[in-house]
């Protein structure tokens, strides 16, 4: 097939070395808030399914990436906070740094590249970190994103999979839209699996687990977070317009799901569908539920048959149940808004247009 051969030529060029054990995990601000189950699942898959070692210690903080890209803190501040994170990694005896967020990954990569080009900047940050905290640091031996790790281990996950990304009734592979965060590979294409134009990191997972990837004209377009373009209400039109453009473009392909590897992207791809439904009455699937948006850990967790409500699918505004039904996933719908032995908590309000 002309298409796949052409892509394989590109992928051959981008061979990223991914370590397969002993990770220092740096959590993501957005994911901790909106997709905490995804981070829990990442650790669970690595430790319980695959017997890997991953350290989740309590002293690390934000990398300050969002504030940096909102331009509210100086570059030296972010660099020093990053240096502190590296210091914690070294203290704990680890060399493989795995930041949960894509913006983080971009920040760490950019800072390491800058220090390579300008060693005097690295020296300055060493001094600042010492002055502020008394800490020293060494740069990590490997810097990889958790989606790189899941990509590298996708066939090991497949061995334990209970479900596939396949329509249980028809046997057809699910049509999957993959959305790779901008800060993964756009700045330094050779730091991403597959490069920036036809990245392979999510495609590899989807195909390994039985799905079919759908390409559409606006695939490479930013989801529209835009940092300050979302945070400030006055700018928010930029954000929703960007995401809507992607939805309009993918609609004819009738995707069954969207999977992303960035924290912000699923937030926008999920929530803006709700807003577009309420503002314009438009839903992007025929059944009125919208296109489910998943993180790659949620996708892996579904394939492994984990409890969807421990994965955190109840935190999504666009319901994921239609997808679960499609692949024949057995789950307890009553458990969705329940916690342990608690009586059913109050249910959230239903939106006006979007079906939930």
């Amino acid at each position, binding site marked *: 097939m002309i298409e796949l051969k*052409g892509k394989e030529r*590109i992928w051959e060029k981008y061979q990223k070395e991914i370590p397969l054990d002993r990770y220092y995990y740096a959590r993501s601000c957005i994911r901790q808030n909106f997709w905490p189950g995804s981070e829990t699942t990442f650790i669970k898959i690595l430790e319980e399914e695959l017997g890997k070692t991953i350290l989740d210690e309590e002293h690390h903080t934000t990398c300050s990436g969002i504030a940096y890209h909102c331009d509210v803190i100086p570059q030296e501040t972010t660099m020093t906070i990053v240096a502190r994170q590296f210091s914690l990694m070294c203290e704990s005896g680890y060399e493989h740094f795995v930041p949960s967020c894509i913006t983080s990954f971009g920040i760490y990569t950019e800072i390491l590249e800058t220090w390579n080009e300008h060693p005097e900047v690295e020296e300055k940050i060493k001094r600042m970190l010492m002055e502020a905290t008394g800490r020293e640091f060494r740069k990590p031996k490997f810097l990889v994103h958790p989606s790189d790790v899941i990509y590298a281990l996708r066939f090991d996950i497949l061995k334990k999979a209970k479900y596939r990304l396949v329509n249980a009734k028809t046997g057809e592979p699910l049509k999957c839209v993959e959305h790779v965060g901008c800060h993964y590979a756009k700045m330094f294409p050779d730091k991403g699996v597959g490069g920036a134009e*036809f990245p392979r990191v999510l495609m590899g997972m989807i195909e390994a687990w039985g799905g079919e990837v759908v*390409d*559409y004209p606006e695939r490479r377009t930013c989801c529209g977070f835009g940092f300050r373009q979302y945070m400030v209400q006055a700018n928010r039109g930029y954000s929703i317009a960007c995401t809507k453009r992607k939805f309009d473009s993918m609609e004819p392909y009738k995707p069954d799901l969207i999977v992303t590897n960035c924290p912000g992207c699923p937030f926008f791809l999920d929530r803006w569908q709700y807003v577009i439904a309420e503002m314009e009455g438009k839903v992007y699937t025929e059944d009125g539920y919208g296109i489910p948006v998943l993180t790659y850990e949620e996708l892996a967790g579904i394939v492994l048959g984990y409890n969807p409500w421990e994965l955190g699918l109840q935190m999504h505004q666009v319901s994921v149940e239609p997808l679960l039904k499609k692949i024949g996933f057995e789950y307890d719908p009553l458990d969705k808004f329940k916690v342990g032995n608690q009586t059913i908590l109050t249910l959230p309000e239903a939106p006006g247009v979007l079906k939930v």
Partner: protein
Amino acid sequence: MEETKKHVLIVGAGIAGLEAATHLEELGYKVSIIEKQQVTGGHVKNWFKTFPYFDASEAIINFAERSLSKFDVYNETQLTYAERNDNGFKVNTDKNKQFQADAILLTPGFKVFDAHKKEEYGYGIFQHVITNADLEKYFRNGWPERDNKNLRFGFIHCVGSRDAKSGNLYCSKVCCATAVKQAIEVRQHFPDSEVYCFYMDLRMFGKNYEEMFQAAQEKHGINFVRARLSEVNQNFDNTLLIKVEDTLTSRPMKLTLDYIVLMSGMEPAENAAQLSQIFGVPTDESGFFAPEKYLVSENNTVSEGVFVAGTATGPKTITETINDARSAALAIHHYLSHSRIPTEHGKE
């Protein structure tokens, strides 16, 4: 008794090598050419028409091969090794043929930039994304089957040239004129087509190029948009969607096209680095051979007895290549006949 002729070995039987051979033979030298392809004629052999007069490439080849019977051509032969000796150069090839030459002329030509490397253009991934070289084949051999009505073509200038991301900072010079020529040919072949040229600058430097460009606009209705292609995608109906900014009106645009023609630039030949090493001829930052002295002595090299000509020193038109080859023949003649032309005014 006849004096033994001096022997010139030429590497590469494209039009530069052939033209130099023609003149060297006439000047009384024995000439051998080694050529890695099955046939002589280099790239021009694969083309259809030439700019700006739309003469057939075949006519150029006929011209270049006019003395072919007078010298020895060794096809499907590649140079593997060479060393200096008292009588010039001993040269080995991959076909168990050895040569003893008094002078060497390197005319390995150029290589077309591999458009796969511009990943965002989708060459080899999306259907109907082709290069200028592919298009010449269509002109010669016919077009592939498809619904050929109202086709929209986009010619993309500067593919693999003037581009830090491709690793080639230089301008490949002849692609602009080629694009205008090919655009006109497409309009002539498909009278109901819509044709765009997306350019950064229009290098219409040669005689009648500007007039060809004006005819392209006025007579053939080709649209020239000052924009560099950023991205190619495929639509749901398999047409191609491009994103550009029309920089003259400051408007980002999306266009749907049926064919995209990537004007891939000239790069140094595959074996240029190897020849540079073997013969001690330095290359410039772009990998083309560096002559002894730019501007005034571009066929001589710092390696005595080794000469260069044609696109091996940089992108050229057909005419420039032919003239350069003649100039190289004269330079070799002066060398072999111990010319007493000084190199500078006031020096012997």
